[in-house]
Structures are given as C-alpha cells and as structure tokens.
C-alpha cells in the first residue's frame, strides 16, 4: 500500500525537486554580461535582491496584490459558493459549468477580453463617453486596479469550487435550527455557516494566495509597464536579461515568502477554528 506513493513521489522528485536543486545551485553563481554565467558559490544575488529598493517594492506590490485579491476573492466567492452549494434545481449543473469553464479559457485570452473592456477605446469607456458621463476616457487599464480585477477573475473559480465543496458538507439542519431559534439569514450565515466553512476558507485562501503570488500573464498584460510583480520580474531576469543566477535568486525569494506566509496564515486561521 505504502509503495503506491512511490511513482508519483519519484516523478515529483525527478521533475521538480531535482530541477529546483539545480536552480538553487545556479542562484549561487555569478553573472557576467559577456560570459553570462560564471561558476561561483556566493550569496551576493540574494543579498542584492534583498537590498535593492526596486525589488523590495516589487515584492511589496506582489504581496499587496496577492493579499488584496485573496480577500476580494473570498468576499465575492463565498456568497457565490454558498448559492451554488445550496442550489438544488437542474440549473446547478449549468451554474457549475459557468464557474468551471473560464478556467479552460487561458489567461492570455481572458486578459485580451479585459483589454477590450477596460482600454481607452474599450467598451466601458465608450459607453461612459457615449452616455456623456465622462468627457475623456478613464484610465482603467494598465494599473494595479486592472491587475487586481484580472487576477480576482482568474482565481474566483478556484475559490468558489473549494468553498462550495466544504459548504455542501455543512448540514442544512444546522442552518434551519439557527433560523428556528430566531437567527435572521445574515446572522445564521455569520454565526453558523461561516465558522463551519472555515476549513474551506483556509484551503481556498491558501490556494488562491499562492496563485496570486505566482501570477504571470495577467500582470504582464493588464498591469502595463510600470506595474511589476515578482513572477514577471523573475522571467525578465531569466529571459530578457539572461541573468540566470539573479533570476534564480529572485525565484527562491518569492517561493520562500509565499511558503512562510502560507504556513503562518493557515496556522493562525486553523488555530482560530479550533478555538471557536
């Protein structure tokens, strides 16, 4: 029985752990504009990344966007998940499909859709100007707001499906009992559904937070040039700057920050759950 874990485990070791170890080794090398990579054992790439105010700011932006998007996805996704989980009609399949299928339409395509909506010549600005509400186009695209909207749209299905699975496991009678005891709908929701769905909130938030921290296509396409998040910065170093050691160091910093926050966050939330 225990041996069944081996094939998958070995595969992950071979295709993820070993490559990451190689990348860790590369992160200790030195970059040279003419020779690209020079063998070395130095922590200077990490040191440089940590000290550089530019990358501090990029990391700060990434954290801010990831936290904001996670909170927003939770706020918007929970009601939708509850609605989906408690739906009984034949429309439930349709609603599920509507949640699932944006996932199959890649981030590039969805970003193109946002551009057509938010651009200066996009649908929203055209409508606003057509109705005479604004004189000129509003700067909706190429800023942090557009990225947040785009990322929230990308991660919402994950949040909704994770939450809905947990909410479906909450006995309806617990809600009925609360209503029977005089709890108004919002009270029942706050006092009974929400605490019982906390494991789902933790699971969904952790998943979504990681996805946000690692977002690549959406910030590149919707954020505009002045807006930088970590994953695109890493890619830039690898592919645009050909500075593999520094790119690798940035990658590990991103990974470390994500993991530490994930563990801390879920432990705190988990403790609250046990206490409650």
């Amino acid at each position, binding site marked *: *029985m*225990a041996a*069944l*874990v081996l*094939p*998958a*485990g070995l*595969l*992950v*070791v071979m*295709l*993820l752990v070993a490559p*990451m170890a*190689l*990348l860790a080794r590369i992160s200790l090398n030195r970059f040279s504009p003419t020779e690209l990579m020079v063998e070395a054992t130095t922590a200077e790439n990490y040191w440089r990344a940590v000290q550089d105010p530019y990358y501090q700011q990029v990391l700060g932006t990434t954290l801010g966007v990831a936290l904001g998007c996670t909170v927003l996805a939770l706020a*918007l996704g*929970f009601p939708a998940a509850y609605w989906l989980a*408690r739906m*009984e009609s034949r429309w*439930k399949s349709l*609603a*599920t*499909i509507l*949640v699932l*299928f*944006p*996932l*199959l*339409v*890649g981030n*590039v*395509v*969805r970003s*193109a*859709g946002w551009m*057509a909506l938010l*651009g200066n*010549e*996009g*649908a929203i*600005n*055209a409508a606003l100007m057509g109705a005479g509400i604004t004189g000129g186009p509003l700067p909706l695209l190429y800023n942090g707001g557009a990225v947040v909207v785009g990322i929230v*749209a990308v991660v*919402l299905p994950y949040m*909704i499906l994770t939450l*809905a699975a947990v909410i479906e496991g909450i006995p309806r009678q617990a809600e009925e009992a609360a209503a029977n005891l005089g709890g108004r*709908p919002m009270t029942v*929701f706050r006092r009974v559904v929400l605490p019982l769905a906390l494991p789902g909130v933790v699971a969904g938030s952790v*998943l979504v937070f*990681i996805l946000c921290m*690692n977002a*690549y296509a959406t910030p590149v396409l919707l954020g505009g040039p002045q807006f930088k998040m970590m*994953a695109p910065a890493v*890619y830039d170093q*690898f592919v645009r700057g050909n500075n593999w050691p520094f*790119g690798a160091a940035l*990658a590990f910093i*991103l*990974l470390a920050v994500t993991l530490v926050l*994930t563990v801390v966050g879920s432990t705190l939330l988990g403790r609250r759950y046990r206490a409650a």
Partner: protein
Amino acid sequence: MLLPAPRTLLFRTAIGAAFLLMLAPVAMVMVISVFRQEIVSFPPPGLTLEWYVNAWARQEFARGFVTSLQVALLATAIGVPLGTAAALALQRSAIRGKGALNTLLLGPLAVPGVVAGTALYMFYLRAEFWLDRDLTATLEGLVAAHVLLTIPWTVRLVSASLQGLDRAAEEAAANLGARPLTVFRRVTLPMLRPGIVAAALFSFIQSFENLELTLLLVGPGRTTLPVAMLSYLEFRIDPTLAAVATVQIVLVAGLMLITDRFVKLSRVV
C-alpha cells in the same frame, strides 16, 4: 426547499459581481472576434467573419489545439492514476512522514510556473547531455512536465474524496469474500469515481491552458495553443486571436455540456 438563505442586496450583488468578473472577459473576447477593424475600439465600424477565415488559414492554431489536446489527455491519463495511487497510500497506509510526502506531492502547485518551467528546461538540458537523448522539445518531455501539473490536483481531490468515504462498504465486500484488489476494483474505485472525474477534469484544465511552464519546453512543430496565441500577439494586432479563442470557447463549452450528460459536473466538483 426554502432555505434561510441570505437574500440581502449585498449578498446578491456579490454573487452577481463574481459571475460578472468570471464571464465578462470571456464574453468580450467573443464579441470582438467579429469586429471589422484591426485594432479593437468601440463602437466597431462594422462586423466581419474574416478573422475566423484567417484563424482557419493559420496552421499554428489548429496544430496548437491538437498538440494541447494531445498533451493534456496524455498528462491526465498518466497523472491521474499516479496521483490516485499516491492519495490512497497517503490516506490508507501507515507510512511515516505523511505530512512531508503530502507537501512534496502538492509542491508543484506552489512553485511559480515560470520558475518550474525554467528549472525543468535547464534540468532537461543537463539530462540530455548525460543520457544522450532528446528531452526538450519532445512530446515525452512536454507530457512529463504537464504530469507535474496534474499530480497535485489529483492528490488533492482524490484525498478529499477518500476522507469522505464510508469504509463500511469496503468491509462488507471483504466480509463477503472479496480479496483486497477486488474490493478496490469493485467497491473503492466506483465510490471514488466523482473524485477521480473531478481530478481528471482539473488535470486536463491545468494542462490545457498552461502557458508559463510550457514556454521553454515546446519545440518545432509542437507548440501548444496558449504559446501559439502569445507568439501571434507579437507580430499581429487583429482580432484573429479572439476568433481562435471563440472557437476554443465554443468547443470547450460543448465538451462540458456533453460531459455533464454523462457525469453530473455539479455532483463532481
């Protein structure tokens, strides 16, 4: 049944906003695919189907679609059984270090696709040198990378399914004389079916739409659809991409509706 469901405006607004956010960009892409001008602006000067003709004429999209489909199906076919086996071992056996193993198997989820893709590409190059065998730009190399995407989702979803499983049915089967493998095949597996279908669905999705992990691993004549789309963007600016995406959206929606006829998606995920 009537539910004590919150029907406040706030609640309804949130649901509406969630669906709007998820669906508006997709709908928008479909709309601009028939705009006549090359650079999209509203309102359009006219409508046309020429982008569909152009999309069809470009081999890279049809080929990309086939490659993506092929890679996604293979990665799912390999990753789901492996992930299911691993989930069984994690949930049912008494091995030590389950927590660490679980973290390992969910690991691919936590590593940014750009990072994993670059690391894997460099690793493949080293491995090619040792093995004297092509890995980058091969179907095997691409599928292996995508299996990496499918494993964490399978472990996650099948584990959840296993935790919710009533073991009495398995005990009943054993009591009726079924050997462990028969119990698994005739009782456990059918009861896990919703979890496995969900795992397969998510695995397929993760592989099919993946861009970041794939960027450096695609090769001549073997480019996936998302990479082909990104590449097209660099030299062209017309709504051909929107046309390709619309065709993809229609195909995907059709596929899901058909799937739903056989396996109720609402009961699976």
